[in-house]
């Protein structure tokens, strides 16, 4: 029917529009800075160069930023997976006083936005003199209730008779967790892990105010810092190369792990 063909055509057009800004930036990154400074329309003149990228590799800052982002993102991901898995098992399978109440409190934490806690967090780390450090960048993210919520749901879904068979087999609670149940949660771990990684990598406000030292910039903050000066900069192409360099990793990860990322983001919203 033509009506649905029209809809599809519109959607196709919209998709192309979605790509245009990215293609524009890519094109700019492949142009010599001098040409762009003279006239930006020179993008269309067909003369491209990889100079900007070469300069990127020569300029150490971006790599420093990326390695900081990697450390922080992997660190936060590992931390969240460990804490949330342990807690998820505890809430889902073990009896202890106050379990229900504690779980509700954790769930209530889902409602707390970053703004309500960020000022105090900043103060705390100031008092401890811990700003501009990896722990400062990683620790706040470990408190997010989403991971615990997800892992608890997942553990709850595993049939209890496996635990019971293992109890009869003389296994300790930890053995049950570590050898029997945890391996069954791999899909949830993947989802949570990728979600946390993405969140840590793209985080802006907290690294902005905590990692104020240039050496500690994460990639996201670093890109912001270069944006501030670019009105004066002559390196438009260089700047664009940085942007491409910054955006590409996540896009590549996305293309590979699309299923998990989509699932994770949708799940987080559905909380």
């Amino acid at each position, binding site marked *: 029917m033509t009506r649905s063909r029209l809809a599809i055509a519109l959607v196709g057009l919209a998709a192309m529009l979605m790509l245009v800004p990215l293609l524009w930036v890519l094109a700019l990154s492949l142009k010599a800075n001098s040409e762009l400074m003279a006239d930006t329309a020179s993008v269309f003149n067909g003369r491209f160069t990889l100079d900007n990228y070469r300069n990127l590799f020569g300029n150490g800052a971006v790599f420093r930023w990326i390695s900081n982002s990697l450390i922080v993102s992997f660190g936060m991901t590992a931390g969240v997976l460990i804490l949330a898995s342990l807690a998820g098992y505890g809430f889902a399978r073990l009896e202890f006083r106050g379990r229900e109440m504690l779980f509700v409190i954790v769930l209530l934490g889902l409602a707390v936005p970053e703004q309500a806690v960020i000022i105090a967090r900043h103060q705390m780390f100031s008092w401890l003199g811990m700003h501009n450090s990896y722990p400062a960048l990683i620790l706040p993210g470990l408190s997010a209730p989403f991971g615990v919520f997800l892992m608890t749901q997942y553990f709850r879904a595993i049939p209890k008779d496996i635990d*019971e068979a293992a109890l*009869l087999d003389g296994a300790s609670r930890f053995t049950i967790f570590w050898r029997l149940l945890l391996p069954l949660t791999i899909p949830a771990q993947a989802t949570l892990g990728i979600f946390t990684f993405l969140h840590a990598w793209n985080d802006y406000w907290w690294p902005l105010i905590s990692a104020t030292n240039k050496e500690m910039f994460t990639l996201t903050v670093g890109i912001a810092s270069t944006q501030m000066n670019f009105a004066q900069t002559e390196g438009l192409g260089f700047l664009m190369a940085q942007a491409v360099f910054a955006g590409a990793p996540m896009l590549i990860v996305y293309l590979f792990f699309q299923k998990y990322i989509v699932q994770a983001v949708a799940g987080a919203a559905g909380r």
Partner: protein
Amino acid sequence: MAGVQLAEVGKAYGAVTVIERLSLAIPAGEFVVFLGPSGCGKSTLLRMIAGLETVDSGAIHIGDRRVDTLPPGKRGVAMVFQHYALYPHLSVRENMAFGLRNLRVPADEIASRIASAVASLEIEGLLERKPGQLSGGQRQRIAIARAIVKQPELFLLDEPLSNLDAALRVRTRLELAQLHRRLGTTMIFVTHDQVEAMTLADRIVVLNAGGIEQVGTPMEIYLRPRTQFVATFVGAPRINLLPVEVKAGATGNALARLGDGTIIGTEVPFAALPSGGAMLGLRAETVCVTAGDEATTHGTAEIVERLGERTLVHTLLSDGARLVAEDAGVSAVRPGDRIGLAIDAAAAHLFDAAGIGHHREAR
């Protein structure tokens, strides 16, 4: 191999009593079946023996050890679960070795136990597979094998056959019986299926609403049901129950009068019967379709079920009561026929107003 003693065992969830002060003694080596409808507490009782449910009152002994305060792993008990509960990501071999490793059994001992369990259950070749790759019947055998290698004092089986298809169920039933013959270990088997209970049990414990209705051998349960509940629960088709008036007969036995006026001369002593109403219990095989004049009463055949080895005739009596009668496998009866019924009065049971069963004197 050890026996099990339950002394005044009770359990409640909040205000709801699930098991009521239950006492039971199971001698070592016996194959006992806990039989009852859903919700009667049979699984709960089994799980209390296993240690998967807490005991609120009373004590449980396995052998001469008191176990109700011990964790499940320390009771010397192995369990076969309804849904097998195999560890999904471990191989079959790993599944069987898991419990033994936790008990620090030496590796060569583990290997030899696994080998003999594999041989007796005919599961060679499955050792390296994961449970997900096996059929339901295979998984069931692995679950049983996992229990065997632990060489427990007591086997607990929680409706292990309910997830199998009919043919597999029969086959596995036979294998379980053979297993018991071979190992001689005490076994407690939970089911709602009375055929399984009748065929496997040395003794059956019939449970209802958290209490024991009757404990006895299969034939005792069948021929001398202690209560109306037991009589209706065991036996297919269901026992016929007809409201009757009783009075004493010349021999001191009760005479039961059916709604259509027929007098059934039972062999139940009248003196034992409390006053009040009574129900007459007649198994279908004691009500035979007959053409001749031995007919005790007559009725109209409504539905005829031909099973092959016998025919069940659902009959309407003249007073509106219905009963199920039996005829030979090859039967000429058709729906709508007027038929004669020969009732074996000697085999009749009487159930008083409280549901207690009264039968003829035991021979």
